[in-house]
């Protein structure tokens, strides 16, 4: 029993042993924060659904290195985002920018809520206009 517990505990401990190279460390904490934020907002193209911060595949490491270089060179977030979008498309950014192409993505949720609300109001109005003592069973047939 004791051995079993030891086995289970050590097995569970293994998962905490991830060693992902987080890449560059900046001396300036502000730059470090920018770097951390930027790499967590860029999609790893090789392992889509991970950010390049969380991924240790080679391309993610390359992109971290490039982003660190651009921060060093004093480029703005906008310029860094452009760099990525020109090469990999809007898909590379976890937060796509509002452009003509992605506008529908940003607007769709609001349009859907509007549409749903409109439909709800119509259904409720219709229900209210029905005679109260109408036989519910008949309602389906008469429509």
């Amino acid at each position, binding site marked *: 029993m004791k051995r079993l517990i030891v086995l289970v505990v050590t097995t569970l401990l293994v998962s905490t042993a991830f060693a992902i190279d987080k890449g560059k460390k900046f001396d300036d904490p502000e730059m470090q924060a920018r770097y951390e934020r930027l790499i967590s907002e860029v999609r790893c193209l090789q392992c*889509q659904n991970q950010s390049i911060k969380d991924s240790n595949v080679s*391309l993610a490491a*390359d992109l971290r290195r490039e982003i660190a270089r651009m921060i060093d060179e004093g480029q703005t977030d906008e310029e860094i985002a452009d760099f990525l*979008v020109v090469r*990999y498309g809007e*898909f590379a950014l976890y937060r796509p920018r509002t452009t003509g192409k992605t506008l529908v993505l940003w607007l769709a949720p609001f349009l859907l809520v509007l549409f749903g609300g409109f439909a709800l109001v119509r259904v409720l109005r219709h229900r209210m206009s029905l005679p109260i003592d109408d036989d519910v069973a008949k309602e389906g047939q008469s*429509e």
Partner: protein
Amino acid sequence: MNRFVWPLIAVAGLLVFLVMGLRHGDPRALPSPFIGEPAPVFELPTLMNPEVNIGTNTFAGDYALVNVWATWCVMCRAEHPFLLELAARKAIPIYGINWRDSRLEAMRWLDELGDPYLASAYDEDGRVGIDWGVYGAPETFLVDPEGTVIYKHLGPLDPVIWQREFVARMSGGGQAK
């Protein structure tokens, strides 16, 4: 009956989108932002001779395939025989970008399996790969005589894809066969 019409239309519309999504093919294949754009400019030493550089100018003036490959890439091995076949029948000039690889291993690979490339650029640190928007080898770009990227294929090439996606895009000219 009328009350079912709108929900039905909505569901049908959703279904159309879902089916389109499923038929899209490889979900990893992203639309390349380079289609219709000039090929990204680069200058790299060749794999075979570090003293000699090749770059975007090397393949100007004719249709060219730019194939991103590496020895660690399993599917590159799968498509290699077909690249050799294309090279043997001189279908199109093929250039390689050896991506994040070891020079020695890459040279040994070409030695063992045959070399379909007029030349391979040696992109050791993946910097040029980033400029070309490469995210998974093998990737194959079709560049037209003006140096414009007209197609990109993700994954191994085969005769069917070659005929359907590449040959169809090359206007009678070039050396396309």
